[in-house]
């Protein structure tokens, strides 16, 4: 806004309220975590004991090493798998590519630990594929528990993110750039390496960061399929859960280290990406062409194989949800027993999920509209700080936010632990960014003069906002809200820390049922989650008129 007079108005108040919310539910908890990590839990004295303990014991350093190995491998592998996938889907005509894209999107939206448990059912010690291969070829597949299993699950789960990022960037590459390169006799792989790769590198890095953060923070997957392969989130969870009521300072100390590490990675990525980012928009995007012969077959095989592997967990889980069960074991024949059992046993978790996610989404929608407006149209020191706050959830893993909230709000003056409020607060903080981003994206398109026109016609600030600005943003807001909604109902790492008997969510229920070996109930609930996700996505497509999602 050029030279608008700085006035105290209703927006200052709104900014203040939102700011206060972030201070209470994000800044304060993180600060409390920091304090806790530096003070001895029993004596209350300042001490570096937790940190020395962490860095001096091979047991802990081993977990750090494991986490780094997993995270780096998953990130690199995802780029190697999804980069070519996006490239193929951009240049080559693939039969059913629309469906393929939607399936890949759906696969990326499920909770990773559901993938882990599905792959255990498929490739585990007693998995159907393992047994099948043993029966037919008489040989035992290598074990998937531990590092390789985590790698498989997280790569399949997270490479769709890179696929979506890179596809988006490739869509913005103008075909004339390719033709110009060809006209200068730069063709084939050389053209790809010299022109395309540099252009999409910033996007690849941004997608890579997202994958890195998610793989680093994921706790359900190593917990289920890791079998003793301890990563840092597992460590934090175990320390925290086993020491509830006692000394949770050590979990806090590990959390602080993790957040510092994540911040460093985040800043590094920003630094690299900023130095080589291009703004592109293609008048004449690359058209997919029909490939010939071997190339065509190879392209199809690659795309279909990836899609099948990515969809396999959800498809198989859905299949088993309709299998007959006897106790905890699947038997021949089909029935809806698992669903009946699910509603009977953990029906409350479905109810909880809908209520809490519903309330969260209302708050998110409101807050996102206001925050997007403040940060886009009312630039200033406070708006910038707010912008930074909204970015924080990208680098604070969900379980750590959960712990931070718990250590802050489990004592006077504000006791929230065990209530739905603390879960909702965590959900709001973690999933706001999606909606803010999509709202801000639309708002950037809205020219300042539209609002000035309304004001010059005598409308008040609030009337201008509600009558003019909000209606113009609304499609972006709803689109973002749906993505936030999906990510709330499928999130585990925060809820597993914060839930109690009364506030159990569906993902928590799936997780506990899987751990207990009640695969039928778990499958029914997971399938329900997938169904809700698919329906929500359909709604998203209808509202946004788009066929893709940006995260």
């Amino acid at each position, binding site marked *: 806004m*050029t030279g608008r*007079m700085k006035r105290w108005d209703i927006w200052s108040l709104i900014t203040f309220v939102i700011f206060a919310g972030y201070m209470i539910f994000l800044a304060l908890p993180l600060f409390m975590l920091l304090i806790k990590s530096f003070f001895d839990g029993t004596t209350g004295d300042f001490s570096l004991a937790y940190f020395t303990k962490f860095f001096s014991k091979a047991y802990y350093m081993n977990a750090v090493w494991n986490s780094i190995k997993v995270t780096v491998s998953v990130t690199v592998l995802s780029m190697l798998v999804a980069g070519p996938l996006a490239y193929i889907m951009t240049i080559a005509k693939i039969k059913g590519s629309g469906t393929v894209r939607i399936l890949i999107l759906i696969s990326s939206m499920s909770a990773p630990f559901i993938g882990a448990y599905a792959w255990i059912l498929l490739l585990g010690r007693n998995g159907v594929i393992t047994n099948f291969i043993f029966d037919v070829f008489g040989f035992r597949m290598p074990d998937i528990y531990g590092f390789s299993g985590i790698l498989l699950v997280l790569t399949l789960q997270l490479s769709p993110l890179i696929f979506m990022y890179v596809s988006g960037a490739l869509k913005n590459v103008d075909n004339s750039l390719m033709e110009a390169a060809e006209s200068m006799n730069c063709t084939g792989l050389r053209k790809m390496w010299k022109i395309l790769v540099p252009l999409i590198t910033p996007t690849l890095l941004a997608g890579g960061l997202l994958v890195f953060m998610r793989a680093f923070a994921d706790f359900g997957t190593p917990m289920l399929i890791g079998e003793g392969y301890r990563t840092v989130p597992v460590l934090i969870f175990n320390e925290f859960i086993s020491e509830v009521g006692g000394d949770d300072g050590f979990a806090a100390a590990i959390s602080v280290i993790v957040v510092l590490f994540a911040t460093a990675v985040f800043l590094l990525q920003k630094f690299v990406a900023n130095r080589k980012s291009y703004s592109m928009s293609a008048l004449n995007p690359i058209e997919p062409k029909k490939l010939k012969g071997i190339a065509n077959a190879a392209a199809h095989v690659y795309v279909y194989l990836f899609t099948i592997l990515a969809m396999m967990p959800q498809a198989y889980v859905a299949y088993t949800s309709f299998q007959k069960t006897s106790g905890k074991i699947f038997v021949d024949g089909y029935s809806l027993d698992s669903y009946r059992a699910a509603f009977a046993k953990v029906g409350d978790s479905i109810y909880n999920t809908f209520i809490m996610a519903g309330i969260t989404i209302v708050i998110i929608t409101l807050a996102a509209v206001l925050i997007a407006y403040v940060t886009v149209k009312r630039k200033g020191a406070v708006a910038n700080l707010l912008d930074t706050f909204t970015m924080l959830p990208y680098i604070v893993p969900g379980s750590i936010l959960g712990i931070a909230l718990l250590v802050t709000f489990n004592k006077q003056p504000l006791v929230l632990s065990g209530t739905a409020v603390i879960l909702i607060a965590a959900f709001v903080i973690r999933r706001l960014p999606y909606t803010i981003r999509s709202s801000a994206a639309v708002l950037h398109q809205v*020219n300042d003069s539209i609002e*000035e*026109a309304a*004001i*010059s*016609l*005598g409308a008040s600030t609030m009337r201008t906002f509600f009558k003019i600005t909000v209606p*113009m943003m609304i499609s972006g807001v709803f689109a973002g809200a749906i993505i936030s909604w999906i990510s709330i109902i499928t999130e585990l790492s925060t809820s597993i820390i914060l839930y109690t008997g009364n506030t159990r969510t569906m993902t928590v229920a799936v997780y506990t049922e899987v751990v207990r070996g009640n695969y039928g109930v778990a499958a029914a609930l997971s399938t329900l989650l997938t169904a809700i996700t698919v329906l929500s996505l359909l709604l998203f497509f209808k509202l946004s008129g788009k066929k893709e999602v940006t995260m």
Partner: protein
Amino acid sequence: MSVAISFQEIVKKYGDTTVIPELSLDIQKGEFFTLLGPSGCGKTTLLRMVAGFNSIEGGALAFNEKVMNDVPPGKRNIGMVFQNYAIFPHLNVSENVAFGLQNRKVSKADQQRRVSDILNTVKIDIYKDRMPKNLSGGQQQRVALARAIVINPDVLLMDEPLSNLDAQLRVDMRNAIKSIQREVGITTVYVTHDQEEAMAVSDRIAVMKSGVIQQVGSPRDIYQRPANLFVATFIGRTNVIDAKLEIGTDGEASVVVGRDYSLPMLALQSQVKPGESVAVRISVRPEEFVLSEDGRGLAGKVVNNVFLGLNTHLVVKLDNGQEVEIIQQSAANDEVNIGQTVRLAILSETINVYDASGERNLNRGTRI
């Protein structure tokens, strides 16, 4: 009810940079007033100060004596037409136009009547239920205009309202704007950097450069008696030629161009004493050159010749190497060949003479 606008030593600063230093200007009631100047000279800035979207760092802005500096935009009763129209995309044509009325205490019936009246005036009544995205550029422009004037504003402000339209439509729309303005009689401040457009619509024009007004006057004044060389070259095309101003012993002034081409000047004001001479610069419009028949005039060689139907444009290289532009009415057999030597006479009654710096017009009766 329209108002007179007065700017009294108005100052605009962005941070430490002063964009408009102490500008004073009076715009009369009901006048169509245009701010004209090159890109970045501060036209938009000044207009937005009138609208209230830009703060004022010094001086006073008054509507009919009432100081407006601290009145918020919504309370100034202005109508504003934006360069990109700023039509509300989610409201249809009548809703767009009615928006301003809804913010005022106007009854529903009155609203409807005024909206349909104004849509008639701007000739888009048949589109009243259309959504903006289904309108052409010119139609959107009319909606923007209707929306701005339906509230009976005291002042109508327009910032390059036609710059997004194609050439032919621009001409049609500027005529429409002019006639609608005359019909409703609102004081109008119009911003453009298209001088032909400014000439066509304005009662008076202010030519600006770097935040400073160079000249205020009617389109005719500004074209025929530009206050300085900047205005002369900015408005229309002209040839600037170095010359000498000589005052004869009898006090008669003449301008000597080239070696010995002397033009008697009747209405010059200067401090030069009889018998002395001083360097000046003259501005000769292309149509103020004629091909000389009697052998008097500046010698030169034709280097280009473009036939444009009604007119023929010539470029002539003078003996001193300077190239000048000439516009002649085309006649049946007046073809001048490239390379041909010619003599150029100057129509001395209409040319303008400036001091050597180009800052001051020496022709008597120039209004600044």
